């Protein structure tokens, strides 16, 4: 098998793809919480994707991503047997896994898949794992069976109320905390505004919270500074100092404005790309 060959590919739901890629070196070094930098093609961007699963023996890594920009669309269009142009990793520091007692996992949208290996590791370390997963609607609740298998409890929310609690997953968490739920640690991953809300909530209840950040990256190895964030008023690079930080220490406003830095360019490029492929944009 060729390096970076796609060996499995499936649509988990509309617009969310799961892909297994042959990358033996990465697979044998991977730990929960780490990510890879992927380029679908030579002209493509370098994009960071969390390692969702891996097998050293099988020589593969599993990635889950949502088709949102040109790079992820191009990646999503690739099929079994094709090779990604580049995969580098595993990058970032692994999650600090320990026996804390009760760990609440909070995850939203496509990031539910990213939370899975971490939740599993916390469970394997002897913690009680209580998962809170949320999405816009029930169809987008990917990886719920995976999460259910390794959690002691699962709480579900959807924005439209099509399943579970109607509202944001952070509101659901807040409700449980108000009802007396007392986790020893909250571990959160998802869109930055959601992580910020989570941080506000857990601070109010005094529960230490670790957030896995997702800024724009270029190099992924500490060379460019594209991923810089303010942590306790100091410049840190998410790719080498993170990706996980204490959520209370993160300057969320800065992260949010950095994430939106290329919004115009991104939608322009996506429009061109989709038109050139004759794809109708539904969103």
């Amino acid at each position, binding site marked *: 098998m060729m390096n970076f060959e796609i060996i499995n590919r499936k649509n988990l739901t509309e617009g969310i793809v799961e892909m297994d890629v042959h990358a033996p070196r990465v697979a044998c070094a991977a730990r929960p919480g780490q990510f890879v930098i992927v380029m679908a093609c030579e002209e493509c961007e370098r994009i960071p994707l969390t390692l969702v699963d891996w097998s050293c023996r099988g020589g593969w890594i599993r990635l889950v991503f949502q088709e949102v920009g040109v790079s992820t669309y191009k990646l999503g269009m690739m099929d079994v047997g094709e090779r990604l142009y580049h995969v580098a990793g595993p990058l970032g520091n692994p999650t600090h896994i320990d026996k804390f007692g009760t760990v609440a996992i909070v995850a939203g949208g496509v990031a539910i898949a990213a939370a899975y290996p971490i939740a599993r590791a916390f469970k394997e370390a002897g913690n009680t794992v209580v998962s809170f997963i949320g999405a816009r609607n029930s169809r987008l609740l990917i990886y719920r069976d995976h999460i259910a298998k390794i959690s002691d409890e699962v709480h579900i929310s959807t924005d439209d109320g099509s399943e579970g609690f109607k509202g944001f997953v952070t509101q659901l968490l807040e409700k449980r905390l108000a009802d007396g739920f007392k986790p020893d640690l909250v571990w959160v991953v998802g869109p930055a505004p959601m992580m910020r809300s989570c941080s506000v909530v857990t601070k109010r209840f005094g529960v230490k919270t670790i957030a896995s950040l997702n800024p724009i990256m270029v190099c992924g190895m500490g060379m460019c500074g594209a991923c810089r964030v303010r942590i306790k008023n100091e410049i840190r690079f998410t790719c080498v100092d993170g990706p996980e930080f204490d959520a209370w220490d993160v300057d969320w406003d800065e992260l949010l404005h950095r994430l939106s*830095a290329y919004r115009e360019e991104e939608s322009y490029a996506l429009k061109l790309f989709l038109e050139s492929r004759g794809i109708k944009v539904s969103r």
Partner: protein
Amino acid sequence: MMVKPKTRIPIPKRPAEERIKDFNEVAVGYTEKEAIEEASRCIQCPDKPCVAGCPVGVDIPRFIKFIREKRFEEAYKVIKERCPIPAITGRVCPQEKQCEKMCRLAKIGQSIAIGALERFVADWAEEHGIYIDKKPDQQIGKSVAVVGSGPAGIVVASDLARLGYQVTVFEALHVPGGVLVYGIPEFRLPKKIVNEELKKLKDIGVDIETGVIVGKTVTVYDLLKEFDAVFIGSGAGNPRFLNIPGEDLGRIYTANEYLTRVNLMRAYMFPAYDTPIHKGKRVAVIGGGNTAMDAARTALRLGAEEVYIVYRRTRREMPAREEEIANAEEEGVKFLFLVQPVEFLGKSKVEALKLEKMRLGEPDETGRPRPIPTGETITIDIDIAITAIGFNPNPLIPKTTPEIKTDEHGRIIVDKEARTTMPRVYAGGDIVVGEGTVIEAMGWGRTAARTIHKDLTST
């Protein structure tokens, strides 16, 4: 009899107003006739002072003599004895501080244009399909891992492969070449040339594996199990910050991010390439080195109307190559000397840069006059800022390998022969010197290769 030396044949360049419209190379190189004429100015000093100025010891008068005799292939072979990548060094070496500085003619007029001649010979050889890199007949039965594919790594790999070692280069990025591909722009060093030189490395049997981050994908310990020796040439790619208010505003780039987006990711061809970049109309570049010049000239080519170099000392103290400072001036980059940034202003994106005027005082520890604040400030309107104030050594490998000791600046400590504090591990280039030059990194590579060969064959 004393004759007045002839003046140097200038290296032909495209006119400034034409070249700032694209990313094609600025200098076009000598014709055969010009090269021969320039070579004929060389007085062939028997004690060869220029050679002493070359960190890899190219026999300069000998190759120049061959040029004069129109024996370009022989000239190429002479250079290649000592320098595996002359097409690159001919373009990027700070010759005015090295070989050309030592040239006798420099004292009485203008030195020989050694860099331009080196480049001429290398380009001539490429054009004429002269190929002298080949796999050695015999393998030595030993293997070496090289971490990083910048100039230091390239030379170690090249030297050891020629000696019959099985060499594997591990590079984190998707393209090998280090700063030569992600930092130095196309208009100064076409990537085609870097690729040709790297191809020669593969031709002599070197394996290059990209996407491997040593310290993450594999550790130095893993490599030591697989290989007889490990060379670390991971460079100084860790950007520094000004730590002044407003540095988190949008559209403030580190030079490394800016140049990486443009050079490595080809953002100047967006949307044909997917990586975007903010182009900007008024760009301030902070710093006075090669990186600052490259960023400023890149900004011009991306269509900026005003580009400022903001430097806290004067032109004389700028560490950039003289030729590039002159090129930047010709192209219309504006230089603001004796100013120090104190604050970036703006709401969410940078809108202005506040600068404090400086004056020069006593020399500091670097030997250059220390800039002293005057209290007076000026503010310039900008929409992009690029910081090019230097780099720290890449900390990843020392951090994951405590046996490899570093100094207080994070540079890997080595002895004169490039041995680190860990047995069978060697290092050189920017990871050892901090911020050096391409040729210095190559010099380290040469030293390390010699030591590795000595150590591996003496036991």
